[in-house]
């Protein structure tokens, strides 16, 4: 039997709105503090209270962060999903349940070890009031789990103290609930189980953070002052994160006035309008949204593209089409973002793979938007945005200064003979712009209707075409400025994996597995759009490229075909789009089954 110390996964099934999130967070953080690499995936319903919700925790001494579909232990606390949860434990695994009530016979599997803990009974005997009993039941299961998995009790205590330092009454009841669960398990079962934790030293330079929080930090550090938004799952916590950080770091200490403005708009149309208006007037402005918001923003994105106004949009992608599954993840907006709006458009897109890149690309997005005077869309997703990832600590270079692009100051305008808004003075396709309220010579009329390079209205074919051709050159030239792709070459590899965003974690794990099985693969992960030439080169270097992505139609593959000219036959799609984060298992079986056909 393989040693499963620091190498296992478990899943906790509860109903949402009962407080299980804090118990799950406590367990996760405790494992992290033991120095053991850990990631959590929250599979939650589009609902506030009472529906099934799951939390998956993967412990990996190797540092793998992708979701795994194989669970060694199931913590089944929601009778509504018992049958499903029992079926999901691996053969030879364990199942913990609330033994206050007996399990039905049909839920008993011979190949699974059952661990009954009378959580409800313990809490009813020790706590008063319905609400406290429900909340403490969650903390009690955390206590029981800590005994089963061998989590250091000191760390649990430390975390509880940190959390409730200002609420001593809550600290007492939490500590009591933890002890109830732990003591019961110790008294009745052999602890810890073979799936167990042992302190490591692999997390001291890391943090546990979700990508919406890190992206909001990116906005803070990039100097964004205007945030406009319409609440939408799974993007909401990005603006809430920004607000929280602003309240801490952007309030004038003397006057208590804010160095930011957050505008909650009436819809996404208005939110992007505010961003465009603010950017036009010279602020760094952004809006977080999801696919439905991108659909609504289409018209305005075309205006910003054509009138050459910076705008930063975060698309925290969720499952489409239409309302889809709002609390499930997908990469379904690649095409709709790349070419958002009517007419000929193309937008700079950035594709973070984890919260660290979400932070870095948030900053890059503002620089690119202002430098190229065009919208930049950061395509995150629910998995990156809302799950807690273990990532290397975020770092900041204090020498950083925003790239504000070609904006003429009052002095420059004063000295200039004249100003033409859309004239390609430097031959790089990027014209100079001016801000309102700065200088009379800088005035021009911004419009989404036909305009000449001088900034005047036009219906003249040549004048129109001259501008629209230059904009195409300008946006294409951003291929060299967006983050370059991650490319890994492996000895003996003849085929490649090409992927994007949050698929990264599963792909690198799958590549290790396949290399161990004698199938080394090269790897490319695109990080920006328009694609740089190295993307085309990679595709051409490999007879077969497995394009791994999370949507039904192979949107990345389509984009690659359209933009690089590499024929479809060189690219084999490996797709997973059922709404949960991708696992290495999906990639390995995808590649193996394609190889079966190819051979």
């Amino acid at each position, binding site marked *: 039997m393989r040693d499963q110390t620091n190498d296992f996964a478990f899943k906790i099934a509860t109903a949402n709105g009962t407080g299980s999130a804090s118990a799950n967070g406590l367990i996760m953080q405790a494992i992290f503090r033991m120095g053991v690499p850990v990631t959590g995936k929250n599979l939650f319903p589009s609902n506030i209270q009472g529906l099934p919700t799951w939390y998956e925790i993967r412990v990996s001494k190797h540092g793998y962060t992708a979701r795994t579909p194989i669970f060694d232990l199931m913590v089944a606390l929601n009778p509504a999903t018992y049958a499903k949860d029992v079926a999901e434990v691996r053969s030879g695994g364990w199942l913990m349940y609330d033994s206050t009530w007996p399990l039905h016979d049909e839920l008993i599997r011979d190949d699974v070890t059952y661990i009954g803990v009378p959580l409800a009974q313990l809490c009813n005997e020790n706590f008063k009031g319905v609400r406290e009993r429900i909340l403490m039941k969650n903390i009690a299961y955390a206590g029981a789990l800590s005994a089963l998995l061998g989590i250091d009790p000191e760390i649990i205590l430390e975390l509880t103290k940190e959390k409730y330092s200002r609420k001593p009454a809550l600290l007492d009841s939490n500590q009591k609930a933890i002890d109830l669960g732990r003591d019961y398990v110790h008294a009745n079962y052999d602890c810890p189980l073979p799936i167990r934790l042992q302190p490591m030293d692999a997390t001291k330079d890391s943090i546990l953070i979700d990508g919406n929080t890190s992206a909001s930090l990116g906005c803070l550090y990039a100097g964004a002052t205007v945030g406009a938004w319409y609440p939408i799952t799974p993007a909401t916590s990005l603006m809430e994160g920004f607000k929280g950080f602003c309240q801490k770091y952007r309030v004038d200490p003397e006057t208590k006035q804010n160095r930011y*403005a957050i*505008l909650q708009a009436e819809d996404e149309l208005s939110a992007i309008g*505010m961003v465009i208006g603010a950017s036009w*007037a010279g602020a760094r402005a952004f809006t977080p949204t999801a696919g439905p918001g991108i659909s609504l923003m289409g018209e305005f994105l075309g205006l910003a593209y054509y009138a050459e106004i910076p705008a930063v949009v975060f698309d925290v992608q969720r499952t489409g089409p239409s309302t889809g599954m709002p609390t499930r993840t997908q990469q379904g907006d690649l095409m709709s973002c790349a070419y958002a709006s009517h007419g000929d458009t193309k937008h700079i897109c950035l594709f973070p793979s984890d919260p660290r890149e979400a932070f870095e690309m948030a900053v890059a997005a503002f620089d690119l938007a202002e430098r190229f005077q065009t919208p930049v869309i950061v395509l995150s997703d629910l998995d990156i945005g809302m799950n807690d990832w273990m990532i290397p600590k975020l770092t900041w270079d204090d020498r950083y200064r925003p790239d504000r692009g070609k904006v003429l100051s009052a002095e420059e305008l004063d000295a200039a003979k004249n100003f033409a808004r859309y004239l390609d003075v430097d031959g790089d396709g990027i014209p100079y712009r001016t801000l309102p*309220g700065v200088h009379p010579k800088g*005035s021009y009329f911004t*419009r989404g209707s036909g305009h000449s390079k001088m900034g005047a209205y036009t219906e003249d074919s040549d004048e129109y075409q001259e501008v629209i051709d230059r904009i195409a050159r300008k946006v294409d030239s951003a291929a060299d400025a967006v983050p370059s792709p991650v490319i890994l070459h492996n000895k003996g590899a003849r085929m490649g994996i090409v992927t994007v965003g949050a698929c990264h974690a599963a792909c690198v794990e799958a590549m290790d597995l396949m290399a161990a099985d004698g199938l080394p693969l090269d790897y490319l992960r695109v990080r920006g759009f328009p694609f740089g030439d190295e993307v085309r080169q990679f595709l051409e270097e490999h007879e077969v490229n497995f394009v791994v992505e999370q949507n039904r139609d192979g949107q990345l593959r389509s984009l690659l075909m359209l933009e690089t000219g590499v024929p479809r036959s060189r690219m084999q799609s490996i797709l997973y789009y059922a709404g949960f984060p991708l696992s290495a298992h999906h990639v390995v079986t995808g590649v193996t089954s394609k190889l079966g056909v190819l051979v």
Partner: protein
Amino acid sequence: MSYLAKPKVHHPSLKKNALGLTRRDYEGSLSTLCAGCGHDSITAAIVQAFWELEIEPYKVAKFSGIGCSSKTPAYFLREAHGFNSVHGRMPSIAAGAGAANRDLIMIGVSGDGDSLSIGLGQLCHAIRRNVNLMYVLENNGVYGLTKGQFSASADPGSTSKRGEVNSMSAIDGALMALTLGATFVARCFSGDKAQLIPILKAGLVHNGFAFIDVISPCVTFNDHEGSTKSYAYTREHQIELVQADFVPVREEIEAEYAPGSVQRVQLHDGSHLNFRKVAEDYDATDRDKSYAYIRKCDEAGEVATGLLFIDPDTKDMMEQAQAVPGPLTSLRFEDLCPGSEALEKLQMRFR
């Protein structure tokens, strides 16, 4: 929008304001609207209002949506930045610009299609937000650029040029603004410059969203018998509830009014408005009474005009956001970015 360049010729005898600028300095390019269009009169009034207020043109930002009315910002203040946005979405652009730089003097020009149909939501929420914007709705009851369809402000029973009868109820922008909590609501007639100019001046000075509905007849598609937005109909049915005189901060009050006939309201910057009441029991600072009075006029088939309501003591969007004074765009980067040390420290939370 289409326009023709206007020759910049100054007659030496043109009167100059305190900045040394003549009215010509507040003009834009030549209008390409139909001859006799009400919108051109409004443009002229806007030019006059800015000139009289002695505002430096480059400090102004002009916004519009799509439609005949939305072309007009090209026809005034050539030295101001203009933004002709997408149909019905100008208020969000202005809100964003105002958030970035609250020192901008913002004017928005829209039409009844732009404001009351496709852009109704944005208008409503800009009112609620109290964006510091003077919003001029050039209201002709018809879609001009697409040649004569009814707009949402067309009165029930009125007819189109082709003789179709409008069966749907009309959206009255002024009444709607009142119910939404607008802090400045006026209605004017484009043909009445004497009334329009002081209201525009007050709207520019007002701290917050100034909604000005201007009946502005469309000579080409809605100036016929059967229209309730024609020159003839408006002239006949307009009743002026109050005459507002705008008195700038530094000017002495010279006009003499009969006792009890004047209501005085102080504006944000210390200037004030003197209302000469035409309708005796009208109170332009009482929202409910204003609403009721306008409704009564409607029922009598009269078009109530004048500065219908004002609440001078309001907080605009940026005051509500408790933002620092001055433009956010002028903040130093060092005051926005917490730096590496803070980042290191704040990440303790994530361990």
